[in-house]
């Protein structure tokens, strides 16, 4: 897991650039227009996205075409899958606790307002 992935996507401008590339390979001009990114900043953001492995770039005559690469998104997916599993475990515990509560004939009172002054 490269934490770079998260650092890269932490920037809202770069997320807009990624969104602009979802439909496929685009030249810089299209990205500027679709992502609403200022021309002066787009090169820097595209460079960072390229360095982090999010985009590929290839020359096409005078233009450079940018496209998304799948690898970092697969890693994101893997991270989300792990997070989901952590929560699946939690809900397993929820189910166990629920069964215990159902077996217990004396359910705890529906507390209205517990305040413990202990710091």
């Amino acid at each position, binding site marked *: 897991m490269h*934490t770079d992935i*998260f*650092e890269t996507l932490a920037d809202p401008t770069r997320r807009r650039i990624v969104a602009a590339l979802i439909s496929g390979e685009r030249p810089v001009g299209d990205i500027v227009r679709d992502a609403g990114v200022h021309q002066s900043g787009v090169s820097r953001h595209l460079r960072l996205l390229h360095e982090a492995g999010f985009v590929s770039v290839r020359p096409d005559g005078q233009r450079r075409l940018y496209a998304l690469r799948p690898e970092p998104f697969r890693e994101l997916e893997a991270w989300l899958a792990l997070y989901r599993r*952590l*929560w699946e475990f939690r809900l397993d515990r*929820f189910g166990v*606790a629920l069964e215990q509560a159902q077996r217990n004939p004396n359910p705890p009172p529906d*507390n209205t307002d517990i305040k413990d002054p202990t710091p």
Partner: protein
Amino acid sequence: MTETAVQAAIVIERTYRATPEELWALWTTKAGFESWWGPEGFRVEVHALEPREGGVLEYDMIADAPEAIAAMKEMGQPISHGTRGTYSEFRPHQRLKLVHTIDFVPNSPVYDSVIEVGFAPVADGHARMIVTLHPHLDPHWTKMSVEGFTSQLAKLDRRFGWTEQRS
């Protein structure tokens, strides 16, 4: 919510042989919340729980199992930390939104973690619970979550004989 957070939503749906009221109680009472909340290897002690919209939820999250204690120590974290949340939405037996203020992740700005839960009765004495999570893709949080729990998950996988993610 910080500007730098990357948000993604994960939706988990489960059906239980229970009423929505029984499910609701596990989220909104001291005994209920303490009976299941927290990652594997942790337990919680609730100090304040105000079951109403805008009500606070304050508890200590305590590393309990030896592996969890070791993991926290390895990360230079205390084995117990005070955690604070708010029931920002509270519609009994139907829907709640629990917002946690995450202020214990080292080198990370304070941010909110939002969990939304919907409850609905279904046929034959069952109820459905839909949990929507908005994991915070902060690099430090990620590091902590992944490094802290991957080994633990591997152990659990072996214990339960899981080889693939369950549906």
